[in-house]
Every structure is written in structure tokens, then in C-alpha cells.
């Protein structure tokens, strides 16, 4: 078939029984269907089998890549943007129908106000991934990407753009991996793609630029405060969770309060913070990947713990019910013996709350007290995701005492209130 030689962007003529169609060929995910952009702008699909004759009228022209000159205003602070993938980092190419990565031009086009807030001195792309595909190696790579900019005095702050699904894991990992942070790191996202006029990326990027040029030397997730395109909040990296699949304000702070509320041109500090300094940040990216997270549910077989032991896992976070309970002695699936045995065998097991909000308190009910006797570590009001990453990081250090470290306020911000 003549259509085999078609490339996305080619202008073609297709003769079918009903009509001669002219338009641009688009990327099609169905090999049987030619997707055609008509002159009117509408796309239609034509099945290969219906095409009587096909002709290329004009081959697609390769897209000229414009080199964007990043202007510099000496009065403004310098910011580096690190792009890692996700909705905020890709857009649809209407010519080919494919998805293409964002470049500097795109970012400055979405939010031209950034140029009035800071100089974007560099756009770095260590990798492009959907956040659901990331793993601890990517967190390490990202920390390593940040390091030279943190130690470069001419750079005042960093903005990282990231997919939303696991953004709150990355923010935790970075805050454990980067020690002695000396300047702001804003991590941001979008829930509506940047090729639409209603994208939330614009406000998120503008507010991230405000944050990156502020004096707050902390890692914060910057995102919409609510459904309005009015202000963003700076959310503490280890106290935040994606709590909605699709809303602009998908991220919510859990068991804490915002660092700042930000609008275009204004940053309102809401609590004490670690100030910008001349410290020399260091990376500590040792990480034990054999850790996992189990949500305990009614009727669940506790031998899942044995499975993890057999697989060589060194640590587990159990997301427990209520104030810190698991099915106990009077349950048909008593978890206590298996937990106790695994801990005796050397596994580190910690408890967090599956209620998401609130603090564990194992002393209220007898079942909590029984669980306590197994040697499990209750992590107070730490989020499960934060606990998982902290556990991996702590167990990555052979000489550390896991219990002591898990309960220590190792990072700049307190894990406990």
C-alpha cells in the first residue's frame, strides 16, 4: 500500500469511494487507520482498506529548532530549571499528532512573567520520564543533577518540573539525599497539559520562580492552593501527598502547614524557615532498595511478610489501621507472631497510619499494645510514603541504628511537631 511511505506531517491526497480527501498525516496508534488532519482543522480516520489511491502532495518539513537565547537581567536572580518529564514537560505537536518534550521556549511561552521574576540561566534535562516509571536511581540522578547548581554561587535557586503521580516520593528522597541545603528548590507540576490555555502550569511556574528567588533554603512542592488560578502554596517536601487524581490542587499538606503562600509578585512567609546560606551542600544518596510498603486490610494473610523476607527485604512499612492496629490474637489472621518473627530475624518493621491524617498512638487499645511488644517502630504522624523512603535511606547506612534514626529528626524540618 502506498500509505506505507507516509510520514507524520506529510500533506497527502487519499481517494476513497466517497470522496477525495486532502490533509496532513498524523501519528496513528492504530496501524490499520490513517489519521488525517483536514484543511478545516478536524481530524478523521480512514481505514487502509478503504483507500483506493494515495499520493503524497508534499513531504513534511523537518521542524527547525530555534535556539532560544536566554536573556539576562543583572538586577534579577538566576534560576536553573530541571525538567524530568510528566504532563508539565510534554506537549502535543498538532502537526504530527505526536507528543514532544517541552523546551525552554515552551516554558517561557507558558509563563512569560518568569522573565520578570528571574533569569532562567539554564534548562537541564537529566531524563524524561512519567513519574510512575521512576525509581530510586532516578531520585539519585536528580540529586546529582542539582548538586553542581547548589554549589554554583551564580545560581540562586532551582525549579524542578515533575510528573504528579509520584512527585511526593521524589520530594522526600531529595530532602534526605541533599544535606545542608543552601538555597531554595521548588518542585512543581501541572495537572492540565501545557498545550491548553487553561493549563495550571503557568501559575505553578510563576510561583515556583518566586519561591526559587526567595530566601527559603528548603525543598518545597509548589502548587495551586485551591481550584482558583489565584495563588500557590509552598508545601513542605516530606509532609505532602497527592490526594486527588485530577484537580489542580491535587497536592495537600498532611499534618503540617504551608511554608508560604505565593501569588505572582508576592510571597507571604507563613512560618519560620531555614534561610539561604553559604553552606556547602553534600549528597548522601546511599539507599537500600529492598524496602516496601504494605497496607494492612481486614482478612489479609500475614504470610506476605514471609514472602518479603524470602525475597531478601530488609525493611517494611506497615500502614496500620486507626491509631496503630493490625489484626490481632482474636482475629482469624493474627499478624503479631509473623511480625515478631521477622523483626527477630533482623527485618526492620515500622508502622504508619492508613488514615493518612493524624498521629499513631499504640497505647489506647490493647491490640496496639500487643503490636508494640513485637518490636515494631511506630512512626507517629509520618506519612507512609515519607516513611518508606526514610527507611530505605536509613537502611542504606550500615552503621546506623535504624530505630534511633527512624525516630530522629534527621532533616532540617522536624518530622514531629
Amino acid at each position, binding site marked *: 500500500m502506498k500509505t506505507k511511505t507516509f510520514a507524520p506531517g506529510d500533506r497527502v491526497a487519499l481517494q476513497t469511494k466517497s470522496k477525495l480527501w486532502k490533509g496532513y498525516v498524523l501519528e496513528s496508534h492504530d496501524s490499520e*487507520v490513517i489519521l488525517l488532519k483536514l484543511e478545516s482543522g*478536524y481530524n478523521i480516520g480512514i481505514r487502509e482498506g478503504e483507500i483506493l489511491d494515495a499520493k503524497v502532495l508534499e513531504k513534511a518539513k523537518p521542524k527547525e529548532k530555534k535556539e532560544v537565547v536566554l536573556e539576562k537581567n543583572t538586577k534579577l536572580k538566576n534560576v536553573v530549571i530541571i525538567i524530568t518529564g510528566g504532563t508539565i514537560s510534554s506537549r502535543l505537536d498538532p502537526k504530527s499528532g505526536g507528543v514532544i518534550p517541552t523546551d525552554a521556549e515552551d516554558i517561557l511561552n507558558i509563563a512569560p512573567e518568569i522573565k520578570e521574576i528571574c533569569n532562567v540561566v539554564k534548562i537541564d534535562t537529566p531524563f524524561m520520564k512519567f513519574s510512575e516509571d521512576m525509581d530510586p536511581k532516578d531520585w539519585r540522578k536528580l540529586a546529582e543533577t542539582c548538586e553542581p547548581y547548589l554549589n554554583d554561587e551564580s545560581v540562586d535557586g532551582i525549579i524542578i518540573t515533575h510528573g504528579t503521580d509520584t512527585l511526593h516520593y521524589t520530594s522526600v528522597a531529595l530532602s534526605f539525599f541533599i544535606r545542608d541545603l543552601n538555597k531554595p528548590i521548588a518542585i512543581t507540576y501541572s495537572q492540565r497539559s501545557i498545550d491548553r490555555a487553561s493549563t495550571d502550569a503557568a501559575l505553578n511556574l510563576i510561583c515556583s520562580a518566586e519561591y526559587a528567588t526567595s530566601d527559603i533554603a528548603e525543598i518545597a512542592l509548589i502548587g495551586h492552593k485551591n481550584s482558583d488560578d489565584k495563588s500557590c502554596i509552598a508545601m513542605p517536601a516530606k509532609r505532602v501527598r497527592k490526594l486527588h487524581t485530577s484537580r489542580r490542587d491535587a497536592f495537600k499538606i498532611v499534618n503540617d502547614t504551608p511554608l508560604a503562600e505565593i501569588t505572582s509578585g508576592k510571597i507571604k512567609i507563613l512560618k519560620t524557615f531555614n534561610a539561604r546560606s553559604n553552606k556547602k551542600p553534600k549528597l548522601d544518596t546511599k539507599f537500600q532498595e529492598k524496602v516496601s510498603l504494605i497496607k494492612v486490610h481486614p482478612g489479609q494473610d500475614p504470610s506476605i511478610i514471609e514472602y518479603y523476607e524470602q525475597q531478601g527485604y530488609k525493611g517494611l512499612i506497615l500502614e496500620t489501621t486507626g491509631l496503630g492496629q493490625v489484626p490481632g490474637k482474636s482475629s482469624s489472621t493474627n499478624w503479631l507472631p509473623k511480625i515478631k518473627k521477622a523483626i527477630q530475624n533482623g527485618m526492620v518493621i515500622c508502622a504508619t497510619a492508613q488514615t493518612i491524617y493524624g498521629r499513631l498512638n499504640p497505647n489506647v487499645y490493647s491490640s496496639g499494645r500487643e503490636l508494640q511488644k513485637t518490636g515494631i517502630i511506630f512512626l507517629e504522624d509520618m506519612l507512609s510514603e515519607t516513611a518508606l523512603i526514610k527507611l530505605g535511606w536509613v537502611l542504606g547506612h550500615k552503621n546506623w541504628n535504624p530505630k534511633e534514626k527512624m525516630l530522629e529528626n534527621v532533616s532540617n524540618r522536624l518530622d514531629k511537631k
Partner: protein
Amino acid sequence: MEHDYKKIGLKIGLEIHQQLNTRKLFCDCPSILRNDEPEYTVERTLNPVVGETGEIDVAAAHEKMKNKTFIYQVYDTNCLVELDESPPGKINIDALKIVLQIAELFKCKIFPITQVMRKTVVDGTNTSGFQRTVLVAHDGYVETGEGKVGIETIALEEDSARKVSEDEKTKTFKLDRLGIPLVEITTKPEIYSPGQGKEVALKIGEVLRACNVKRGIGTIRQDVNISIKGSKRVEIKGFQDTKMMVKTIDTEISRQEECVENGECKNEVRGALPDGSSKFQRPMPGAARMYPETDVPLLKISRELINEVKKNLPKLVSEHKSYLSEFGLNDELVKLILKQGKVEDFKTLSKVIESPELIAKSLTLFQKEIARKEGKSLIEVNEILNAHVLEAILEEVGKKISKNDVRTVMQKVVRGEALDEAMEKSDVDLREEVEKLVREKPGLSTGAYMGLVMGKFKGKVSGKEVADVLGEVLF
């Protein structure tokens, strides 16, 4: 204002938008317009969209949109889809079927595979910054007295948000209308006189009304594209009424003739005014900027679906009219049946009894009369006396009851009597007799009628029953 349309090379094309009578196109919210207070509001901005090929000056676009805030009023009949806080759901299959019906009635060809598109709109009328639209059919036609006029395309799209107010900095919209399915019918520029334009509009309107579309002001919007030799295409928007079409087109022709003379023709969009003139609105926008709606799969319209639609094609009013007239019904009854949408019921009932006039009256006049007498709404009476009930009553004509009893039985049913009870012979005859008596001997006193009736039925009926019936008939 006499024009030789042929000589001046008049070309007219119509674009008609009609709301469909279903839930919303990409969510399950009801298509209800609200005039009460909203639950809450959200505040949004729209951003310049990265240009496709650089032909759009992003900086300029941005400058224009800067500092414009859109406020959306949200109701409990809205969801996160209208708020642009959730991806669209599946396309509404009922709406698609209606559009397929319309396409079939215009003898269009249907696209077997088509893609929902996002048409960029940044004036705030869409929370998303675009309107979702999908081509469904192409290349049909409308017959007119002056020849066939081609239908270029038929599309299914979302209606926009309703503007409530505007000031320098903010525009306020209601989210109630956003997402109501619209059919967009675009004719080819093959209309060569204003009269033909009106005829096409009326023909299209007739097809639309035969299908399940919304009724009333604001549910249909008609735009007319007009050009003459030497001028440029001008779009006149906002006809609510086809009555003004001929005058408006003629006025526009005169305006364009002047433009041609002065050599200052421009492509522009004008708004129709009630007096038949029009007012400049804005320059004609460039080609619509469209890109695919990546959150919904390609729309595949199967043979099976098209066949199902073809099997259930609605009849046009003109077809219904001739169908009903064949039964020998008078014009008034035909009109009533059409107006009240009772053609299908008429068809069903005509299989039960060979008495078209009685069926027609039972469906229309009788019900109206009963509603008035019983102090109930016509809708309520229609509901009680649905086709099934009427079928049960008419089946008994010639058996339990006579033709003359039908109206009385209907009234009793409306009053709450069981069917069997209502068809009891004595009661029925009593009422009929009383009415006959009053007709034949008008002006007597109630007592006189009472005596006559009691005498006639000789103890078969109680005095109270007769008094009740008399009370109803006389007052």
C-alpha cells in the same frame, strides 16, 4: 432594495447550532439552565497557547489576555468536568445517535472513524480554553424549490458557558450551559437568494424538530455567511428567528454593494439586529486552531449503530401531516396531534379501533377539556391517560362501552377511579344522558332535570349520583 441576485453573484451559506435534549456531552450532568444562586464560584485565567507553527504571536496574545480574570458560577448540577478539573468522560451516546439521525435525514455520509477535537477558544466561554467538537458526517443535501443545497458537514460539539456580566478586569459565566450537546450543521455556499436561504433554514429546522432536540428561545442559533461578486465573505451571527432572514440578507447585500463601490471590503463577523440590519462585531477569525482531545479515544461509528439509527428514523412534520390527513382528520386535529407530539400514540391506537376522529380527540381535545374541568394540569392528565390506558378504554368500545362513553370514562379515570369501575355501564349512561338532556332542553332548573333523569333510570341510580353529575354538567 430590489437585487438581481444572479447578476450580483450572491452566495449564501448557513451554519445552524441546535441544542440536543440529552445530558451533557462529556459528563453525566443534566442539561439544566439555572437562575438561582450558585453553590460557589471559581476564579481562573487563561494563558497564551504555544503556537503550532509560530504563526501566532504569543507575546501579543499574552498581552491581550493578561490581567483578565474569569469567574465561573458553579451549581450542584455541575461536576469537575465542566470545572476543567477532571478529564472528559465517554461521549454521550444518546447525543451521538440524535446527530446520526439528523445526518441520515439529510442523506449525509457518516465518518466511520473520527476524532474529538479541541477548538481553541480563549474568551473564557470554556473553562478548558477550548471547545470539544467532532465531525460526524459530510456531504448531504437539502431539497429546495430552487434546487439542492449541499450540507458540507455535521458536527457534534459542546455548548459554551453563559456570560453573566463583564467589566474591565473580569468576566463572569455560569457553568450550567457548558457542555450541553450541540449539533452544528454547515451548508455549502450554494444558496443563491435570501428566499432560498429562509427555505433551507426552515427545512433544517423541521428536521431538527423531528428529532430529540431542545425547544424554545436560545436553543437554536443560526449564522449566515454572505458574499457577492467582488466583496468578501461576511458572517452574520445570532438569528433567533428565520422571519428576519430575508430582510437581513437584503440589507447586507446593499451594504456589501457599497463596500464594493468604495473598494473597502473586509472579512468580518457582524451581529444581527432586530430591525434587519447588522452591527460589526469583530474581524473574521483565522482558520480554527484545532488539536486532538487526547483524553478520549478515537470515535468509531459502527455499521451496527448506523443501522440501528436508520431503523428508528423519526418522521418529519410534513410526512406526519400527510400521514394523518390520509385518515380524514380535519386540520385542527392534525395540528393538535403534531403540536402535542402524539403521532406515535395515534399510530398505536389506530390499530385498536377504526375510528380516527375518536382516537384523535381522545389524545387531544378530551384531555384538554378534562384537565380544565378537573382543575388539573394538562401534563398531569396526559400522564394519567397515557397510550396504555387509552388503549384499554378504546378496546372496550362496542363491548362494555359505546363511543359516546369514552370521554366520560377518561374523566373518571383522571378522578382516580379504576378502569373497570369507570367503565360500569350505568354510570356512563347516566352522564351521557344528563348531558344530552341539558343540550336538548336548556335552561331548566336543577330540580326539573333531576326529576327527568330519575324518571328515566327508574331506581337504577341514586339521587345523590344524579345530583353529582348534574352539578358537574350544569356548572
